[in-house]
């Protein structure tokens, strides 16, 4: 809870800093702040006290447990990486820097709510905090028509999904008489689940599938990813995606596990479709950001496997997969953003000849792509392994076969990027990343390797 408060305070500080003209030191201060918040978060691990504000017990609203602390840690770390990239990214628009940073901090605080909600109202609030901040960020390049389109599209579709979510919550409340996860679970396990409750469950599932961009609710994501400024795309693809998944998992495991038979069949079909369609459409993409959007869709399919496997405690698998995915994707963006800004376009051919022009960046992007493709010894491999293993343990054998086939398809398009770097001819445009970008890309790749070789830290965490 303290973590959430401090993050919000840091966001407010950003807005004040604009007035005090402290823009130059803003990014270092935020990163230092996040490091402190991360530390506070770690400290809470030992004793997760109930949240009491002004003498009122808030644990009916939010609960801090090991699940939420672990995912909060991941979220804060991811955000710190994105902040490290942002000072150079927004150097053309220094006047808005503090606004962007503040909004990003609010996205982070929204995700923190999502990890620890115990009440469907808090879930809705968390989703809205994240989404509304993202609508603004997607459209933040005001004079770029595609950024405008992205923001507008995301806003329209997203608010529709929020409406569906709210409707689902209302129906569940109507049936069970409560917003609280444990009471909902008690209602389900008492037997006699009314059809209204099931419809409510369905609507909520649909809305969350929309938020994580699973097929058939994925149409918004490639357009929004492509149109948004690259760093915002990175935020959506990593921080936000993992957060929505964690919220989804928390909802399912704590509230709706009793109707798993009912939701399971649907989620199974959705997961299979997401993995296959995401990977197949990705094959035809030329734009790197669209490619990562479809790759993100297919990864959503794999993560849905973890949600399906919730009878055994698969949250560790989800956390590990999320971490591996975040590291690889941010690593890829840390290479892609300087390349795009030098080349002035964003298709895969922008990477042509990078292996000769800048071997270090090419190597880092190669490692990130290999991790996304799930090749050992990188973290992506073990992430896939855990997810598959949990799914098999829960009896989803055929779905795992589909996942294996899908990941074979996936290799092809990740290699398209690698091939562009190493086999196509280079041009004269010099690509030179700033030191911060270099640090971030190397950090991501090194962590991917470390996690792939010593996964022990994560495997039994939650």
């Amino acid at each position, binding site marked *: 809870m303290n973590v959430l408060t401090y993050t919000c305070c840091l966001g407010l500080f950003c807005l004040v800093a604009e007035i005090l003209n402290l823009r130059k030191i803003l990014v270092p201060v935020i990163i230092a702040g996040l490091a402190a918040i991360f530390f506070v978060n770690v400290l809470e691990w030992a004793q997760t006290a109930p949240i009491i504000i002004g003498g009122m017990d808030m644990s009916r609203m939010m609960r801090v447990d090991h699940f939420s602390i672990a995912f909060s840690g991941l979220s804060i770390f991811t955000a710190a990486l994105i902040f490290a990239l942002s000072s150079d990214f927004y150097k053309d628009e220094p006047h808005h820097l503090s606004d962007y940073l503040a909004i990003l901090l609010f996205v982070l605080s929204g995700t923190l709510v999502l990890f620890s909600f115990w009440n469907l109202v808090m879930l809705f609030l968390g989703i809205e905090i994240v989404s509304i901040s993202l609508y603004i960020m997607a459209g933040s390049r005001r004079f770029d028509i595609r950024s405008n389109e992205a923001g507008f599209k995301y806003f329209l579709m997203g608010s529709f999904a929020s409406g569906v979510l709210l409707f689902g919550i209302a129906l569940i409340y109507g049936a069970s008489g409560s917003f609280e996860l444990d009471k909902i679970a008690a209602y389900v396990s008492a037997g006699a689940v009314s059809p209204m409750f099931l419809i409510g469950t369905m609507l909520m599932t649909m809305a969350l599938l929309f938020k994580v961009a699973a097929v058939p609710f994925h149409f918004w994501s490639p357009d929004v990813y492509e149109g948004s400024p690259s760093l915002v795309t990175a935020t959506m693809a990593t921080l936000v995606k993992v957060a929505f998944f964690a919220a989804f998992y928390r909802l399912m495991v704590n509230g709706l596990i009793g109707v798993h038979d009912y939701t399971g069949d649907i989620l199974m079909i959705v997961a299979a479709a997401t993995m296959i369609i995401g990977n197949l459409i990705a094959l035809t993409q030329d734009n790197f950001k669209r490619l990562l959007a479809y790759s993100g869709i297919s990864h959503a399919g794999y993560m849905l496997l973890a949600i399906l496997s919730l009878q055994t405690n698969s949250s*560790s698998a989800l956390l590990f997969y999320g971490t591996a995915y975040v590291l690889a994707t941010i690593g890829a963006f840390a290479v892609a953003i300087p390349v795009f800004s030098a080349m002035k376009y964003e298709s895969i051919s922008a990477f042509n000849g990078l292996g000769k022009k800048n071997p270090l960046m090419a190597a880092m992007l190669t490692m990130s792509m*290999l991790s996304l493709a799930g*090749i*050992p*010894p990188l973290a992506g*491999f073990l992430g896939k*392994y*855990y997810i*598959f*293993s949990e799914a*098999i*343990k829960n009896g989803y*054998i055929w779905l*795992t*076969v589909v996942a*294996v086939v899908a*990941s*074979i398809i996936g*290799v*092809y398009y990740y*290699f398209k990027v690698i*091939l562009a770097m*190493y*086999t196509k001819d280079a041009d004269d445009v010099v690509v030179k990343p700033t030191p911060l970008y270099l640090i971030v890309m190397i950090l991501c790749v090194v962590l991917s390797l470390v996690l792939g070789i010593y*996964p*022990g830290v994560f*495997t*039994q965490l939650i």
Partner: protein
Amino acid sequence: MITLLLLFFPLAAALFVFLAGHKMAAKLALGFAVIELAISGYAVSKFLKEGSDAFFVFKPWIDYPKVSFHLAVDGLSLLMILLTNFLTPIIVLSAFNRIIPRAKSYFALILMMQFALLGVFMAMDGLLYYIFWELALIPIYFIALQWGGENRVAITLKFFIYTLAGSLLMLFGFIMLYWYNPAHTFDIRELYQSAVSAKNQSWLFWMFFLAFAIKIPIVPFHTWQADTYRESPTQGTMLLSGIMLKMGTYSLIRWLLPVLPLGVAQWGPLAIALCVIGIVYASIIAIKQKNLKNLLAYSSLAHVGLISAGIFAFNIQGLQGSVVQMIAHGINVVGLFFCADIIFNRTGSQDVYGLGGIRNKAPQFTTVFMVIVLGSVALPLTNGFIGEFLLLYGVYEYNTWLSVFAGLTIILGAVYMLRMFKKVMLGPTSLPAEGFTDLQWNEMLALGIIVVFVIVMGVYPKPILQLAEPALQLILNKSIN
């Protein structure tokens, strides 16, 4: 300790070579490879004295799922390690006096490859083994991609995805095995003990068999092979044909037979039939080849078909023969591809029918090439003979008719190899062969060593048989019970 040194030395060497720069890369890589060979010589002496206990390494690695860093070396592994460490310096040596762009990456990748291969041969934990197996694919992919021929991009991608597809099926198989065995572990000792039901073994067999069949390759999963061999740089082809495909045959013996004996009992006849069909098919195709590298690729396909047939024959002669032939084939095929590279390097041609009369210009080269060709057609007193004899004997024990068809490999092999030799080396001096210079020192050294082994192994194969036998007998007993 010796195990870790043996395994990690090439990795350290790869890093060192990469950091040392282009000029020194080849020499350093050769030096390191020779040191590694010396280490493996020491390992052999230790093995003979203390047995496999001296090589046992077991460290818990991941708590859940239970994966351990479990390495062990028995006679079978030791022979494969020796093959790898013997061929690597020769492969590096073959690249001397050749112009290789970005040399430091090239040689570092070769040493990386050596590291991964050694890992495959030592790992005794399913997931660890799988990781090394996949890891071996990365360096060879980049070697073929960056230093390969014209059509390399499409062909290497096909190779990569093809083999990765097989590997992922195997991963799936391993996860299933993990949950099937009561101890929930990947440890090979547990996997050997665990009794998976016949029904499950039946389909698990295919998960593993496909992975190995693609890597070896067994017909009809061979379509990546000839193209990849042709388009890879010579050292890449040598690594692929000399060592990497032995990963597949080794894994058949180490993992498939003892872990899924009932599955093998059920599908073995089909597998062996595929192998024998592959032998005949590859031999016939080889006869029709005009491109030298393609011809060698198909001849290699026929040879590994016989090796796999011997393994699936499931008796000690077949297994013994397969081990001897894995080593002989590894040595011979590296020699053959080196000869092909020398010819291509001097004449710019790989066309069997366009060459001729090289003997008139290069007598030394002709002699060594001849010996290696004879080894490859299994002339008695060369290394190819012992292996093929034992293999055919093993197949004969299994089924007479199959051995008749498998035996065609000797006749057909002689046809295409000797005819190729005649067309390329003998006759009047052809236009491309004008100005063919004889062997340089590095070529002489590498080919000389190979020739010595072709003959010595042919005359005195006993040490290999003795080293391999206890390990093979153990595996055979496990799978028959």
